[in-house]
């Protein structure tokens, strides 16, 4: 009887054990690894027709069939003031949008990427030239702590 009771107790404990991990998703769905990366390094100053690069990847491979456009607006203004630019695909699978920037400052760019199976709307901030004190405050609001990363401007 003691052995039997021990067996019941052990089984009870074992049944309650075990946990679901993030790998379990693969049993129910295919989660593709999609990344949309914007690079604003081609926009160092206020000028017209500066390149904003967008790379779209699925499972580590370039996606060459996407429709890509980018909305850009000054971070201090309302998103409704944004200008939308169409991006064209470069030979190496990178998409490029020609951006006009009238004055230096803090900007937001929102890409609209769509293919048959991917829909992405990543949002990114980027600096053009130097920021004013107000823009640093705005940056601090957008990304708390990021102000310190550029140091000493406040």
């Amino acid at each position: 009887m003691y052995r039997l009771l021990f067996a019941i107790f052990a089984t009870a404990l074992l049944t309650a054990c075990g946990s679901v991990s993030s790998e379990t998703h693969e049993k129910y769905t295919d989660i593709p690894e999609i990344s949309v990366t914007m690079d604003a390094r081609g926009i160092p100053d206020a000028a017209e027709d500066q390149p904003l690069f967008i790379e779209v990847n699925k499972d580590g491979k370039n996606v060459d069939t996407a429709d890509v456009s980018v909305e850009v607006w000054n971070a201090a203004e309302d998103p409704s003031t944004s200008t939308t630019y169409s991006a064209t695909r470069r030979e190496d699978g990178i998409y490029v949008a020609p951006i006009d920037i009238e004055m230096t400052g803090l900007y937001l760019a929102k890409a609209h990427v769509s293919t048959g199976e991917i829909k992405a709307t990543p949002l990114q901030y980027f600096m053009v030239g130097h920021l004013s004190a107000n823009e640093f405050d705005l940056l601090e609001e957008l990304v708390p702590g990021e102000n310190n990363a550029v140091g000493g401007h406040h």
Partner: protein
Amino acid sequence: MEATGERLAPEEQVNIAQNEIEGSVTRYRPGEDPERSAEVAIATEDGTSYTVFVDPYEGTVLGILNDDRRIMDIIEKVHGELMAGTVGDRIVELAACWTIIMIITGLYLWFPRKAKDISGILLPRLKQGRKIMIRDLHAVTGFWWSGGLLLFLLTGMLWTGLWGNSVQNITTMSGAGYPPSIWIGPAPESGVKTEEIADVSWAAEDLPAPRSENLSGRLPVSINDIVASAEEMGVHPTYDIFYPSGETGVFTLSTFPNQAQDEATVHIDQYSGVTLADYRFQDYGFIGKVMALGITTHKGLQFGLINQLFGLVICLGLISMIITGFWMWLKRKPQGNTGAPASDRLIHHKVPFIILIVLAIFFPLVGISLIAVFLFDLLIVQRVPMLRKWLNVKEKRRTD
């Protein structure tokens, strides 16, 4: 609330709510009906959660509710855990487990061995005296009601902390249950918040070297985009949007409407707006589908009014069995003790013994409660003559 004019953008509605309560937004619900207010849930620093009801047309706040005071939530807490947290949850689970055992052992006792007709087996004998009538109302009702009772008990048990969690764990892990994150398990994670631009060498080989203050980074996507995605994906309009809980968290669209077939759980990367996982009823494993249908039936939602009437009839049947069972015990009970059968070695009764062992393994809390009873018997009942007499336990019986 009257639906007049254009709806404000979800982000504006959320901002209006945040002006009322200071804290982090945890949930937004646009509302399935044009005349229904939008809901914004906000958690304050002290951990209290409030729901702000916003008129999406006028932009006014219609009311604020402390989530701890939602009546349906309180009723659910009474129903599921007796308002006593984990202890209450275990008590409810134990009661449900033992009710299942009572039904199965009751069916064993009911099972006709020498019957000549259906009277007293499938039909109650109402004209052969009160004693037989009560017995038949208990046994025959028990037989007819047992299927429905088991359905409600087993589906209700899915919410329990020990058995329910174990079942969800096992079925989800096996691929036959709910996908992860719906009941149990983690959601997928959002991508990293800030890409190291220096690592992205593909784009700008011919560009000037970045200046030290040339900074850029990702931001969470707008709730407007998440709502637009929900509409595009055709998620049932009763959905809630749960905000990411941290830097790697995701936006989660979640809806559990009346019909299980309309359920949806969608995880969206907070920085790219990409759908990471889109779980609908058809994505559930076979057992997951059965559980989902069982749960909406348990809640009286799946089949509407008929479903609720069915639940009511089952509930009344259970109450009648409790009353008739108690009445029969009272009539048989001798003066001075409980009337429990004289204690015997259970192993001499093979079928009930096997039923009990199987159920003790299947329901861990039953196994644990049996051990507790065994220890109570060994350490207390055996040593207290008054208890021994009251429970009809033989003196100096073997404990193996």
